[in-house]
């Protein structure tokens, strides 16, 4: 399994992406998955798209990307969190 790169984005790149980034770090640690997390603004995703495997975002990603996009609002509200974690893990072990 090659090391995956996840882009973690929100509108300003400072608030909700910080929370999601930390949650992902813990999730991967828990499952012993070595991953490269890049926190950014949603507007920076295009320039970081090369080499990325997944986008986890709290905001709308209205562009098409060559990798899956997962909405991360559940990490903030706690609603539906298990399902989102499973979707992310499924992408990482592909």
């Amino acid at each position, binding site marked *: 399994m090659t090391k995956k790169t996840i882009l973690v984005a929100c*509108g300003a790149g400072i608030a909700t992406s910080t929370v999601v980034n930390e949650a992902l770090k813990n999730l991967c640690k828990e499952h012993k998955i070595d991953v490269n997390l890049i926190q950014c603004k*949603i507007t920076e995703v295009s320039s970081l798209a090369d080499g990325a495997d997944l986008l986890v975002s709290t905001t*709308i990603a209205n562009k098409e990307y060559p990798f899956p996009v997962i909405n991360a*609002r559940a990490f*903030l*509200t706690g609603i539906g969190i298990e399902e989102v974690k499973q979707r992310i893990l499924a992408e990482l072990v592909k």
Partner: protein
Amino acid sequence: MTMDMMDEAFILIGVEGESKEDILARMAENLVKLGVVKESYIAAVIEREQAYPTGLPTGGCSVAIPHTDIEHVNRKAISIGVLKQPVRFGIMGEEEETTPVELVFMLAMDQKHSQLKLLTRLMQVIQDQSMLIALSHETSPASIKELMNAVLQFETQGGPLA
């Protein structure tokens, strides 16, 4: 939270407005008046909310966590607004959907990646239905501050935020 990040002056009860823009302007103007953010924060936070909505439906009452870029901020703070009537905010990550917000946590962030602990605690508040309902029924800034401090205690006792 060395210097009160959540001074009573940042807590507004019975905030009224027709639209989310009214609410945001009212709360941001208060922070400008108190010197926490720059004048430019007002337009910036409204614009950011339009582009990237921050409304969060929860199990309790819906909240919003508006914020904007660090260059509009003088020092970090959290401003809490208890709305007189629910006002519709766009839902974070959705194109069209809105949610009736009763509590607004307006964030003034001053540095990148420096507020993890605080944000994590704030999310714990947001995930605590009974806490949100209690906050939305409070009638004095002092009791809101007390409730929030009980949850954010780690920061108040732990010295400056990392």
